[in-house]
């Protein structure tokens, strides 16, 4: 029984360590400073959690470029970009609170689980004090909840669903990007002006959370304008051929098709719709029209010719002429050789906003940062005067209504701005039905 002894020892060891684990005081998370991952040395680590593989990998790559640029500017390298046009002058180009900014990156794979694993490793292993990034609402909501639990700040990247700052809002999470409601509110007047007020709309909606909130937002905004919704059909997210969903549109008496699709879904559904000749159709004596609520340059690129003249909304576009946008496009273009996407813009701005909030608060402690960001008003970041609302941590700013350009001059010049919808028109009450449920809770320092 010599081997038997070994087993007994093993069991005893297990017991002893488990016992020790139970009896030891649990003080790790508190640390001395009172919050998770307080930076102690001369550097501070930020976590950039973006999709590097999967359907939104291209957007993720652009987000990462923007973050690298932001770190450069924060550390006082490069031309400073939007730091020069930003209305708050707390940032001095010597890192954050004098600590040099370092970063770690991770791959969300556009899956909640993988994104959380990646964020957890940044928090537990690399000591990141803030997590930012992401290109899907599912991921944003999942990582935001994780950061709330762990006691670090989450600065959302590209996430458009109402829920991120609606029913799933969290005190430690902040969103600069606009949302479904704002898209609907900005689009409806432009649509009414261009297509008239007695239209019959047919919705094709991607069958997941973002699709639902977008459909609801566009439907209620257009119906308020006098439109009628004749049909809403859910399409599976993995669908690549939408022919079978387009045929019923031809048989209905709808004269507008709203495609609540994003990414590859939208590229395919729009291409199918155009192939079926929807855009040459006349219904009820009116020209048939197609609308895409959320546009991105990468989608416009994918759909090619088919986007020409189609209306949609976007958070930011590089052709904006204000000082902030121009400074950003210039430094991004100098470094990478092409203009940034809206995903890159929102991520860059989020990184700067976080750094600025820390400077103003004088501390990295999440609760101090939350306090500094809540109700913060700023300008010079490309979207005009902007407010970080305290009630739901959502940014309120102008929304761009765009349409596919008829005569693009380059592969990046695909969208043209139709109207800049002023912020007052897209504002809503924090307890608006589309955002009801959920609570911010209180900020968590993780101590």
């Amino acid at each position, binding site marked *: 029984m010599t081997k038997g002894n070994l087993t007994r020892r093993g069991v005893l060891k297990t017991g002893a360590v488990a016992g020790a684990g139970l009896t030891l005081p649990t003080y790790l998370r508190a640390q001395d400073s009172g919050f998770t991952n307080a930076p102690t040395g001369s550097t501070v680590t930020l976590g950039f959690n973006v999709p590097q593989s999967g359907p939104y990998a291209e957007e993720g790559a652009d987000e990462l470029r923007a973050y690298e640029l932001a770190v450069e500017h924060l550390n006082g390298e490069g031309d400073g970009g939007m730091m020069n046009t930003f209305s708050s002058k707390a940032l001095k180009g010597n890192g954050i609170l004098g600590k040099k900014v370092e970063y770690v990156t991770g791959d969300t794979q556009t899956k909640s689980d993988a994104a959380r694993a*990646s964020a957890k490793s940044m928090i537990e292993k690399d000591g990141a004090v803030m997590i930012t990034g992401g290109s899907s609402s599912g991921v944003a*909501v999942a990582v935001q909840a994780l950061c709330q639990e762990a006691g670090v700040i989450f600065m959302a990247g590209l996430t458009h669903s109402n829920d991120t700052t609606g029913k799933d809002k969290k005190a430690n999470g902040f969103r600069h990007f606009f949302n479904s409601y704002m898209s609907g509110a900005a689009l409806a007047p432009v649509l009414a002006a261009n297509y008239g007020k007695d239209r019959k709309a047919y919705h094709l909606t991607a069958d997941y959370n973002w699709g639902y909130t977008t459909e609801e937002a566009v439907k209620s905004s257009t119906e308020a304008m006098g439109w009628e919704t004749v049909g809403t059909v859910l399409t599976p997210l993995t669908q690549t051929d939408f022919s079978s969903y387009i045929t019923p549109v031809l048989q209905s008496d709808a004269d507008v098709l709203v495609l609540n699709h994003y990414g590859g879904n939208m590229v395919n559904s729009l291409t199918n719709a155009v192939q079926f000749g929807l855009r040459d159709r006349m219904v009820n004596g009116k020209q048939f029209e197609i609308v895409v609520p959320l546009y991105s340059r990468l989608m416009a690129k994918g759909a090619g010719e088919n986007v020409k003249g189609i209306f949609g909304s976007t958070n930011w576009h590089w052709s904006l002429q204000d000082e902030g946008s121009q400074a950003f496009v210039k430094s991004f273009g100098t470094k990478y050789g092409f203009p940034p996407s809206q995903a890159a813009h929102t991520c860059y701005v989020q990184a700067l906003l976080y750094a600025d909030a820390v400077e103003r608060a004088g501390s990295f402690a999440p609760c101090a940062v939350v306090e500094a960001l809540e109700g913060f008003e700023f300008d010079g970041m490309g979207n005009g005067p902007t407010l970080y609302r305290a009630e739901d941590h959502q940014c309120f700013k102008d929304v761009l209504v765009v349409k596919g350009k008829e005569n693009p001059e380059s592969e990046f010049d695909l969208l043209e701005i139709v109207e800049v919808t002023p912020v007052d028109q897209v504002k809503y009450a924090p307890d608006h039905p589309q955002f009801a449920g959920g609570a911010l809770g209180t900020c968590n320092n993780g101590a």
Partner: protein
Amino acid sequence: MFGLNRKDATLLAIVAALIVFAPFILNPFPAESGWAQFNAGYPDLMQRFVIFGIFAIGFNILFGLTGYLSFGHAAFLGVGSYAAVWMFKLLSMNVIPAIILAVITAGLFALVIGYVSLRRSGIYFSILTLAFAQMSFALAYSVLTPITGGETGLQLALDDPRILDAAAAGGNIPVPSLFGMEMRDSVDLTFGAWVFTFNFGYYFCGLVMLIAFYLSIRIFRSPFGMMLRAVKSNQQRLNYTGLNPRPYTLAAFVISGMYAGLAGGLMASMDPLAGAERMFWTASGEVVLMTILGGVGTLIGPVLGAGMIKYMENIISKINSDILHTWFAFLPDGLEDVVVGLIYPFIGKGWHLTLGIVFMLVVIFLPGGLVQGGQKIAAVFRRRSANAGGAEAEAAKQNPAE
């Protein structure tokens, strides 16, 4: 001891030691050194190692013993997670009821799917299980959104009932715990430049895995296990001897589904969120990879395979080009760029590529998985140390991988 023979008892002891000392073994590099990048001893990854180890052990009971290749095992993991999160929402943040419900739900789910799928064998069985899993995924992603949370996943909320718990103090959602001991509690131990983290959740998972591993040894050595092996080696002969293999295969399927449910429940206990992606077919494929990489039909193989894949997913994928540049900064500029350019496709988002190459190498050169590799190395040492004991080495070689 525990009704095990000497060899199995040793194996169990080794696994126990590995679990206990994992925080040391996985953190071989000082925290401030450049090599710290390769440290895997942080709570989240260690928890993943053991949880996926449990998942793979369970999968191996079905695939390794009966030879039925289920391509939809992630569905049970997902169902277990959802069940556990619902327990957190409705009953209590204590992990015990959550894990129990997770195992039961996954078991019932496996009973239904197994009853239908096991009417066919071979590729048809695989396709059936795959179809069921994809169906579950699609349902969880969209139609069942009220129950599963859809795309954003099922999460805890401040206003959940949690009827057994006292009302949460403050504005934060309580975290899963075992009778008051929070799963995320950790203790840091500093030895000079080294930092080792001991996490309560990890040791809890480790204990569960040890029990799961022990049960799997007992199943492998039992008459029931023998019947399952008979199914694998020749099902027709079994039929002709008058035995009906279906109850055995169904039992194996349900047990393996319950293991997956246990893994799902633990996953939700460590991180209270259940997403539909857990049920996606790639997740089912991953556990097949883990088992084959480690060694099909061996006891410890699946655990090693699970560790290997999770390590690559979490460590290799986090190396970015900046880190590479700092590693090779000592080289002349032009050469540095060339070296970085050569390695870059295999790190970061290219970790799948590295995993694919490793998988191919293992399948081509070590068809018995990592376990076979270990045996080969052991055989070399044994031959060297005792060239007189040739007969014993021969016998060891002929033993099937265990």
